[in-house]
């Protein structure tokens, strides 16, 4: 029996073809790999402990009182949930990949800055990559993939999304979550635009163009909208949230108790997004971030991250994906 601790069933979902040969290969300690592994663990912990767990506090507060709160508060709750889900799962993936790297193993990348996606197809190429490629190889391609009649092709894509929804749990909300993403995908498929954005956004530029920014916001909004189904307790809870968001109360000032306290989290999330944007070509957020800084500044940056982790550690939030 072989036990490989760093990687769990939640992901990255590693393939035997990639992982097993590494067990047989003689490994020797590599300084740069070890440092890189530690850095990725640090970034993963930051995403999980500082971003995800802090957002979770407000998400729980807002969604458990969704009946009493106005539409704008629920939208804030959804935004927080986006960063909770991303920080949580990609944070865990970074910890798993980093730990493996420390021991000389290479696991596949699982997230590639999904919130900078310009369409839904690109989003799913960047979100939980190991699961989506598994679905591609073991469901989509055996069903015939794209080398079939157009109607069958659409069916194949839709089935993959439905099953990916169902993978998260035997609940109608997850099935609908998958279905909505399947529907989001259809226009891209029909107009053959699903592979339009394969490059890195704003490559060789500091800022995105207005068009890119618009597409990013549009995609982010679509994904956020679908998170309602993901986070709500059941279908009727989802419907009540939908109704609230699309009511006039959306235009009111947010009325949840922790609004003032959440501002610090907004600031941290904003800094986090900026770092991720700067590093969007790299394997993870701080792979090369600050690498050309003088040592005291670089170390200072890492110390600040460690301090933030210590300040927020222990909020007892389970990794979201552990339940799936």
């Amino acid at each position, binding site marked *: 029996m072989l036990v490989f601790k760093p990687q769990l069933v939640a992901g990255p979902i590693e393939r035997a073809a990639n992982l097993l040969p590494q067990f047989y290969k003689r490994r020797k*300690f590599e*300084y740069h790999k070890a440092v890189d592994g530690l850095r990725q663990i640090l970034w993963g912990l930051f995403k999980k402990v500082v971003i995800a767990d802090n957002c979770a506090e407000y998400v729980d507060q807002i969604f458990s009182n969704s009946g009493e709160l106005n539409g704008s508060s629920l939208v804030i709750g959804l935004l927080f949930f986006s960063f909770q889900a991303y920080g949580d799962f990609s944070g865990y993936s970074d910890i798993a990949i980093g730990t493996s790297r420390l021991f000389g193993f290479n696991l596949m990348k699982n997230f590639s800055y999904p919130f900078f996606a310009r369409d839904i197809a690109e989003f799913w190429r960047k979100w939980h990559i190991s699961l989506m490629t598994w679905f591609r190889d073991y469901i989509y391609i055996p069903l015939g993939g794209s080398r079939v009649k157009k109607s069958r092709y659409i069916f194949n894509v839709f089935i993959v999304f439905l099953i990916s929804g169902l993978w998260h749990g035997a609940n109608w909300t997850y099935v609908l979550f998958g279905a909505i993403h399947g529907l989001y995908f259809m226009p891209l498929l029909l107009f053959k635009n699903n592979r339009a954005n394969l490059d890195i956004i704003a490559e060789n530029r500091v800022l995105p163009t207005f068009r890119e920014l618009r597409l990013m916001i549009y995609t982010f909004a679509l994904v956020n909208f679908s998170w309602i189904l993901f986070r709500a307790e059941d279908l009727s809870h989802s419907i009540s949230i939908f109704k609230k968001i699309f009511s006039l109360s959306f235009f009111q000032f947010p009325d949840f108790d922790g609004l003032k306290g959440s501002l610090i989290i907004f600031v941290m999330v904003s800094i986090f997004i900026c770092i991720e944007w700067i590093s969007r070509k790299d394997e993870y957020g701080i792979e090369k971030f600050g690498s050309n800084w003088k040592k005291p500044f670089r170390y200072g940056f*890492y110390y600040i991250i460690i301090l933030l982790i*210590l300040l927020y*550690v222990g909020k007892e939030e389970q990794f979201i994906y552990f339940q799936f």
Partner: protein
Amino acid sequence: MKYFLRKLLFFIIPIILFLLSYEYVMHSLGETSTIPTVFEIQERNRNSLFMRKYLSQDFRNYKLYGIKRNKPEILSSGSSRMMQIRSEFFNSTYYNAGGLLHNMRDLNNFLESDIKANTILVGIDPWWFKYDNLKIRDKNKEFEFSKGKFDLTRYNSLIDYHKIISDLTKERISKNIGTNAQLFNGGFRLDGSLKTPDYRINLLLKEKKFIDIEEPKTSKRIKNGLTGRFSISKFDTLKFENSIKLVKSLVDEGKNIIVYLMPFSNESYHTLVNTEKQKDLFEFATVHMPKVLDSYGIKYIPTEHPSLYKLDDTYFIDGFHPSEIFVAIQLKRYASLFNNEIDPVKLDTLINNRFCNLLFNKSEMLTIYNESD
């Protein structure tokens, strides 16, 4: 590998030094004392109080260890509203495990645990049986003391390091354990009861009127249905009856169990009566709960308020936490429920010799407001 470890050590040393300085400051404030150590100190100095400010109270373990160590013949438990009952009220050994029960599951787990005490006073809050309260996640199920382990959450307080340093430089009461106890002379006594901090007592002595220090005020919470206690939610009467069945089974085993339906301040009580949307809460506490207890033949102290004893709200710490004097007055009235374990004459002495409406023993106060002001 050696180069890597050397670099790692070089990177980690400043962090370790910083954390060591923090540990030293925390130790100086008495925040890091383990629970058995707290009890040893309190046994050596019976006036010593325990209340941390920055590190976790590890409250649950503190109380569970107190039960285990004191082996009381009389045990009381409930929410924080039960914390004012003191060993001086009883003739037998007593421990106050108030604050351990926060919902119905806690109550049931407590009743199903192996309680050695012969007499048990259980404080029950009506809101534990609201539907929205029943959804509470099942945490800390076991009623067994567990040795604390090193927990990284202790560093969450680093955000307040400047305040911690400033507290370190303030005048502190060295016999007490933990920052709050040292600064404010408030905290848990050896018998598990809670001493109200000096500044709260001084405030009452100065203002000579009831000031609800809860924020928002308890009456506002009742009126607006704020917080789980007063949210507008229905009650699950069947669940209450199931808990009472557990009480009954203990009674059948020969335990003397008294259910304490917690009192309200006059203001809170009358707000409850006059708030139409809180009718369910009021009826549940004053009609339904006594009815079920009567039907099972369980002894109980009903939901009361100070005006029943011709007293004002200065006998309440806030809208729903009674003072030790008020609890003493109630226990005197219901002394017959406790098989000779309460001496009404002794209770009377304590009540009449009170220092102020919140506290009967003046010697427990270290900073006393000048009454001539």
